[in-house]
């Protein structure tokens, strides 16, 4: 396994290093590369719930929002607590606080996922769809009700523990620093893909598949279905939070972290990626994420027709090829089978 994985990892690592050297900082190309990476993380993680475990979550943007805000709180208010200023910190300190913020973002999203998943996953699967959709809306409503971001001059007026509640309301968290880079983004992409791929081959992954194929049969075989559903859900929420953390720290992060950025259209976009790529196929979800992100950029001039095309594609794929374009298989196994 390790030897087989070594080559692609090496190739990818070299590619990322080259890209970060070639692509200028704060350019349009860099922004698209960020988008692609973030969407891969979102699609592959949602695939853990929708594809592997067969549960239908359409609130991924909500968890992304939790991650984004939690991480930006760490870099902004945490940065102030550490260094007494809120600008971008260079060097090891900056790297460290960004790593911590990503982890915190993921963990907060995971906690939110646990709170949302526990009541709804005990029941029939489609309640999850409605609860997750609702959760995304609640998060948005709550974020919009928060007071404005504190400037350093105002920090003294608010006790330290209450500061993280100042999230900027409807205007968004306008002081995010561009800690993110191509290397960070694709390190997280690699982590997500690796976890998703290894997960499917593990005992837990087998249990997920059993739940997806037939919940009652799985339960009869001694699989604790609720437990595995919650595990899948929490894991997916964690990586959605990571994606949110990456999203919140790109250039122009202030405009990026507005509550409306995380509405259910964003969730639907991720669902479309997972469905088109093939539910259960890690590489399928990743490829679909890349393709749809690029397509979105290319179709910007005909934006009115873009969603119509996506919607039709979604319906047609479901009717003509119900398991998605790649099905549950990985891309390389499809090639192999054609050769044989």
């Amino acid at each position: 396994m390790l030897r087989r994985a070594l080559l692609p990892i090496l190739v990818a690592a070299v590619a990322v290093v080259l890209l970060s050297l070639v692509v200028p900082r704060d350019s349009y190309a860099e922004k698209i590369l960020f988008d692609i990476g973030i969407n891969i993380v979102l699609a592959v993680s949602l695939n853990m719930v929708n594809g592997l475990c067969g549960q239908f979550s359409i609130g991924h943007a909500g968890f992304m929002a939790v991650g984004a805000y939690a991480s930006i709180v760490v870099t902004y208010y945490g940065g102030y607590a550490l260094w007494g200023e809120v600008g971008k910190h260079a060097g090891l300190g900056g790297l460290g606080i960004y790593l911590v913020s990503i982890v915190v973002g993921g963990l907060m999203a995971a906690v939110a996922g646990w709170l949302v998943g526990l009541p709804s996953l005990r029941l029939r699967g489609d309640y999850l769809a409605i609860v997750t959709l609702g959760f995304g809306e609640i998060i948005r409503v709550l974020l919009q009700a928060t007071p404005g971001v504190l400037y350093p001059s105002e920090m003294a007026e608010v006790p330290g523990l209450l500061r993280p509640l100042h999230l900027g309301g409807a205007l968004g968290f306008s002081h995010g620093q561009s800690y993110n880079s191509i290397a960070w983004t694709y390190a997280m992409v690699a982590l997500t893909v690796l976890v998703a791929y290894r997960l499917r081959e593990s005992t837990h992954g087998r249990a997920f598949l059993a739940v997806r194929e037939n919940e009652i049969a799985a339960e009869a075989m001694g699989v604790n279905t609720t437990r595995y559903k919650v595990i899948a859900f929490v894991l997916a929420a964690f990586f959605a939070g990571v994606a949110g953390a990456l999203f919140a720290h790109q250039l122009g992060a202030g405009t990026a972290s507005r509550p409306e950025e995380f509405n259910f259209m964003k969730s639907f976009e991720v669902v479309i990626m997972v469905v088109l790529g093939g539910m259960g196929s890690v590489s399928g979800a990743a490829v679909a994420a890349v393709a749809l992100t690029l397509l979105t950029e290319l179709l910007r001039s005909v934006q009115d027709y873009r969603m119509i095309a996506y919607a039709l594609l979604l319906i047609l794929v479901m009717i003509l090829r119900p398991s998605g374009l790649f099905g549950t298989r990985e891309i390389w196994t499809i090639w192999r089978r054609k050769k044989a």
Partner: protein
Amino acid sequence: MAAFLQFLFKGISVGSLYALLALGYTMVYGILSFINFAHSDVFMLGAFFTWRFAGAFGLDHPSSVQVAGLLLMAMAACAVTGFLIERLAYRPLRHAPRINVLITAIGVSLLIENVGQLVFGKSVVQFPSLSEASIGFGKHTVMMDDTFTIGGVNVRVVEVFAVAASIALMLALQWMVYRTKVGRAMRAVSVDHQVAGLMGIPVDRIISLTFIIGSALAGAGGLLVGFTYGQIKQPADASWILYGLKAFIAAVIGGIGNLPGAMLGGLVLGLSEQFVAGYVSTTFRDAIAFALLILILLVRPSGILGRRVVEKV
């Protein structure tokens, strides 16, 4: 006290609309066990069809008879839409896993919204005025857009009309499902497709009929919401989807698959929303529905009036 009564009236007014929509969700869920995400879009279409029909006939100030005519036309147009949705998108997936149907439903919803944006435009649309529509007999005639103050409560005639129309439609549906042969067939199909088919019930036709009825009710809801608020937002506006979600939540609160439950759930939701908006904060008005949903899922997952169903293999 006046404030309390005002919230009560507003809650009933909003709640009866939720109930009208919830019936469509609950009927489809009862028969096909999936959330018809496109239902809120049929509701949206009901409002836009009304607006277009009124424009086509030059009805800037329709009389109450003309409003009734618009109602019938909107219901018919939505019924056709609902029929087509089921026939083209859902029927090919009759034996597919539920998750596929759910995804298709989202696809249909996105499709209708975005085609709607192209056809109806992207701006807020002004509904025809009700200033010429009168209701009642002789001395007791009132204009539909009048507002009365009774005991400190502002009561708009059009809202009373909307509540009355919703209740009438709900009673008609209740009668149809529990007192007619077609209704018995619908109930049979919701228990078991296969066995119902063996008993000579045309299952596909009954399912089509369910969509037709549900969509017609949603169309009526669209017209009522348009006349109540006087203007409607663009087709892809989040408020339409939110309306649909709340109606579905109302159906779950009352007990999914249960008609009186959907009506009760609609009222419970409408009232709690208005009281929270009135006494706590309007910010949380949209969040209360989901809080209620999670609460009901924890405490009584089968809903207030629903019976616990054991899943059999």
